[in-house]
């Protein structure tokens, strides 16, 4: 009985709702393309605006104030934080210098750049190799491809834990290996340079597959008839690779490297999971540590420095290799 009343509304109300609905439909239909576009973009603009654009601006704003013990904003100090942090005059909340450098920000920069350079270069080679293998036709390719991709889909905590256990003295086998190699500490995870190496290895394990995935997509979009032409012209497999495959796959390789560079320069989770930010202080690590220490202005300043560096690198990439 009560259900009946809920379903059948009074005729007048139904008519009114229908009228409103029709009016809305008519109003939308009469919108110009530009306003219609903005209407459809509204959810995206609100989400991205509130969750990304506003926070970035706010971070910048906070970085122009001094550290405060009570709230988020201290006194307005302009670019003083930037000057202090870039010249290494604010060490208190930042992690210990790495490679015994005097300036913590310098060590953050060095860790971030060494990590990014080494891991992205190795990932490019490994990923390219994987993609070349996967591009062949062979039995069981589906399963092998899945096996290659799985490390990339591993959660960061778990990836970190695998390498943490592997390199923990007395637990995993890997510390016995590092003992044989020169210049490597047996206590791999608490020694800066060695721990950085372990983090790099962990990242290569996970992210090579990502490069492989993108390059493979590029390889598979190559027109196969080009190979028939090359074969008729008498090109050896190596020449086919050098003259057909490689030039055509370079654009996808560059996209993969761009994504990887951005990802590597933001590195935080892997470090925290494999060793700790105190041992390998990347730029993002320093932000989080300052935040945890309540130095919000320092956190905001380093965050903005990091963001600017990434923005610059990305812009150079785009200007040099792709017309946007």
């Amino acid at each position, binding site marked *: 009985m009560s259900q009946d009343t809920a379903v059948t509304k009074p005729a007048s109300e139904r008519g009114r709702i229908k009228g409103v609905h029709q009016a809305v439909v008519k109003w939308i239909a009469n919108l110009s393309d*530009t306003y219609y576009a903005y209407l459809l*973009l509204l959810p*995206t603009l609100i989400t991205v605006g509130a969750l990304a654009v506003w926070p970035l601006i706010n971070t910048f704003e*906070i970085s122009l104030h001094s550290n405060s013990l009570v709230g*988020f904003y201290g006194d307005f100090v302009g670019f003083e934080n930037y000057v202090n942090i870039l010249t290494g005059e604010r060490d208190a909340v930042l992690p210990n210098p790495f490679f015994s450098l005097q300036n913590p920000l310098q060590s953050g920069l060095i860790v971030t750049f060494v990590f990014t350079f080494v891991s992205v270069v190795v990932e490019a080679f490994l990923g390219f190799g994987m993609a070349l293998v996967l591009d062949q036709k062979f039995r069981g390719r589906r399963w092998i491809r899945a096996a290659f991709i799985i490390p990339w889909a591993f*959660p960061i905590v778990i990836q970190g834990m695998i*390498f943490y*256990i592997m390199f923990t003295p007395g637990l995993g086998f890997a510390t016995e290996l590092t003992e044989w190699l020169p210049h490597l500490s047996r206590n791999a995870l608490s020694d800066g340079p060695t721990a950085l190496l372990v983090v790099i290895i962990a990242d290569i394990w996970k992210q090579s597959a990502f490069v492989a995935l993108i390059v493979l997509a590029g390889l598979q979009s190559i027109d196969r008839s080009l190979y028939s032409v090359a074969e008729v012209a008498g090109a050896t497999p190596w020449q086919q690779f050098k003259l057909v495959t490689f030039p055509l796959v370079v654009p996808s390789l560059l996209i993969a490297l761009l994504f990887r560079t951005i990802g590597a320069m933001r590195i935080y989770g892997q470090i925290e999971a494999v060793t700790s930010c105190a041992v390998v202080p990347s730029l993002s690590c320093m932000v989080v540590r300052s935040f945890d220490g309540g130095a919000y202005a320092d956190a905001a300043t380093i965050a903005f420095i*990091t*963001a600017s560096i990434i923005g610059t690198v990305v812009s150079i990439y785009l200007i040099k290799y792709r017309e946007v």
Partner: protein
Amino acid sequence: MSQAKSDDGLVAKWANYSMRNPKLVYRYLFYISLAAFLLISLFPIYWLFVIALTSPDNMSNIWFLPRGFNIGVFIDIFQTTPFHWYVLNSLIIASVTTALVLLFASLAGYVFGRMEFRFRRPLMLAVLAISYFPAAAYLLPLFRLLTGNISVFGISSPDLFNTHIGIVIPLLGITMPLAIFILTTFYGQIPDGLEDAARIEGTTRLGALFRVIMPLSAPGVATAGVLTFITVYNEFFFSFLMNDGEVSNGAPLVWGMLRFQERFQVNYGEMAAASLVATIPIVILVIFAQERIVSGLTSGALKE
């Protein structure tokens, strides 16, 4: 002369033979690299099994075989912690985020890919540029916004700490740019004629988007969806920030893993077993979606 030839070592013989049969050499190279890559990819996962199966009192210097066969550990993890709830929380957060991202990014992808209007390029670039910045750069303001410390026109933001939504919302902002990037190129490639045909039959633009354009771009939608799902399921940063780790507060997987470290002695076997269980959903997704991802990246996302 012939004497010299028979004196050639094995290596020289092999080299001569391979010069005459390059195809064969390439085949061997292929198998060798295939094996090497498989070893690199799968060894750490295999080793995780070894750790899981080793009983706690034998846990030292573990090489390549488990000491003991402690299969019960896969049941123990659910008894010592409510581990299944952590996994479930992560699945809920990932599914909700993926659904919302696909919906919003579809609208944006339609607009950016198929409509001409003022500020199209600058808006698109602005949305994409967001993905350059480290999550750490959003940390402070987002934390304040989502814990009810920001007020707009006298209305303070809701406190979403310890809720699923509190993790979903920041991840929306972070995962959306890539989804928009992929969907824009896909939707832009659908011929106008197909949309026009649907429009002539009286469908609205949105009707055409959801009934014609989206189904035709299925590989792209699948790619964007899978990438978003995997990113969110594996996320680290905001999962930590926006939760205190209680399973009843919607704590995701990251916290579930930490539970095994909280006792006096870390139980590495249980931690490894839990890791393996936690990756099962993602492994299944990868196995079923891999072809879609590659074909999705091939036919759309990379062509822009």
